[in-house]
């Protein structure tokens, strides 16, 4: 067996340090991608080794806060993968309409692009009044951005096209006004949203959901951590509840694969088995 590379030893120790000192647990993140991010973080901090980065982060909480935010930041789009939202609208919504009240969890909501997309879709489908949305992330900046609902104007053209392709019934511009240097989405879209700091790595289940959307979040986890997160989703979903993943994610390799059936196979929408 080859000796572990020095760099890999250093990274392991750094992740352990971040966990013990700041309770951010990246120890079971997919190694290849967390390594890339750490390399960028190290270069930004201007230090030559991960041991030096560890030293700095252990003793400088402000620097650590910046690095932790960098390590956990994600960007998304409104109605990203329009066919996913079309499938939610056309295939999942008819089931949701049979419930008197609904709980929807956007797990890893980043800056709220997907949350707003679903809120708009639920309004157009007449489900908004009976729905409570839970929007969670581990990145505090992202949660704040999501609760503000302001996005760069230069992205609205692409988002508008996504919205149209997803089967949107109105015009995306009906939902925002221009101000604060961006597109400000109507705050009524966020009236039924609970924002919360929640980690799929370390925190517990939510109460009975009918729909969980968690897209391109678990790609950053290793298999073991994915199993934990999918286990959380299984236990947080009511029987017959739905789980939507990113277009290149799959439950095929999960230990919980038998707890779900493929509901819309090509859009990675799964349904919690009833028995």
């Amino acid at each position, binding site marked *: 067996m*080859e*000796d572990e*590379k*020095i*760099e890999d030893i250093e990274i392991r120790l750094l992740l352990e340090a971040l966990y013990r000192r700041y309770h951010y647990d990246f120890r079971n993140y*997919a*190694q*290849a*991608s967390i*390594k*890339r*991010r750490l390399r960028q973080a190290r270069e930004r901090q201007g230090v030559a080794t991960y041991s030096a980065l560890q030293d700095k982060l252990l003793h400088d909480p402000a620097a650590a806060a910046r690095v932790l935010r960098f390590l956990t930041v*994600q*960007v998304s789009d409104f109605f990203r993968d329009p066919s996913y939202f079309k499938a939610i609208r056309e295939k999942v919504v008819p089931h949701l309409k049979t419930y008197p009240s609904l709980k929807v969890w956007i797990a890893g909501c980043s800056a709220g692009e997907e949350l707003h997309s679903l809120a708009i879709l639920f309004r157009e489908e007449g489900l908004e009044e009976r729905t409570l949305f839970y929007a969670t992330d581990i990145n505090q900046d992202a949660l704040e951005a999501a609760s503000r609902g302001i996005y760069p104007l230069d992205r609205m053209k692409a988002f508008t096209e996504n919205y149209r392709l997803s089967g949107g019934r109105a015009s995306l511009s009906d939902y925002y006004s221009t101000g604060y240097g961006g597109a400000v989405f109507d705050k009524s879209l966020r009236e039924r949203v609970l924002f919360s700091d929640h980690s799929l790595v370390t925190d517990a289940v939510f109460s009975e959901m009918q729909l969980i959307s968690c897209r*391109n979040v*678990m*790609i*950053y986890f*290793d*298999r073991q951590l*994915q199993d934990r997160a999918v286990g959380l989703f299984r236990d947080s979903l009511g029987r017959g509840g739905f789980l939507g993943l*990113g*277009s*290149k*994610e*799959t439950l*095929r*390799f999960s230990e919980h694969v038998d707890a779900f059936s493929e509901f819309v196979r090509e859009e990675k929408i799964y349904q919690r088995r009833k028995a």
Partner: protein
Amino acid sequence: MSEPGVSARRTPDAVVIGASAGAIQALLHILPALPEDYALPVLIVVHVPPGRRSELTMLFAAKCRLPVGEGEDKEPILPGTVTFAPPDYHMLVEPGGTISLSRDEQVLFSRPSIDVLFESAADAYGPGLVGVVLTGANEDGAQGLAAVAQAGGMTLVQDPASAYARAMPEAALKACRAARRMSLDGIVAALLAAGTR
């Protein structure tokens, strides 16, 4: 980063290929030439525009003797398969020999990025990797190929003179002195030698 004890070349474990402008013609020369008992996995990044489902997989599945697919997250990497990076995702190799995907920012204006695939594969396979940079009009792949060489892997570059676009192979040759400059026929012969048991 250079490590002691990786200089001895061993039997390859995997092939990574990067291509951009002119990729399809070049890959049509290479991939259909691989036999159905080919012993190595072949992982490929082609720069494709985001927001569109890739048609590469269908095109090459019809022309190749090996199974051709688009990488899914945590998929095991199997010998004798061809896997394309999906549009708008980086595709990486995890040390245990599985694929992981990322939506991290573009690298050199590209997602998927050749550098990201090559650097992670160099990390996972070390001297057991063959890296190939083909035609393209940018500099993606140059750093990645240097990482492959640094880890002790074999590095091949399409001769810029015969490439549809020469910037990418030229940048790769410049960044990676160890790389061999080859015709497409030469690359096919080298890949067959590396992966026929």
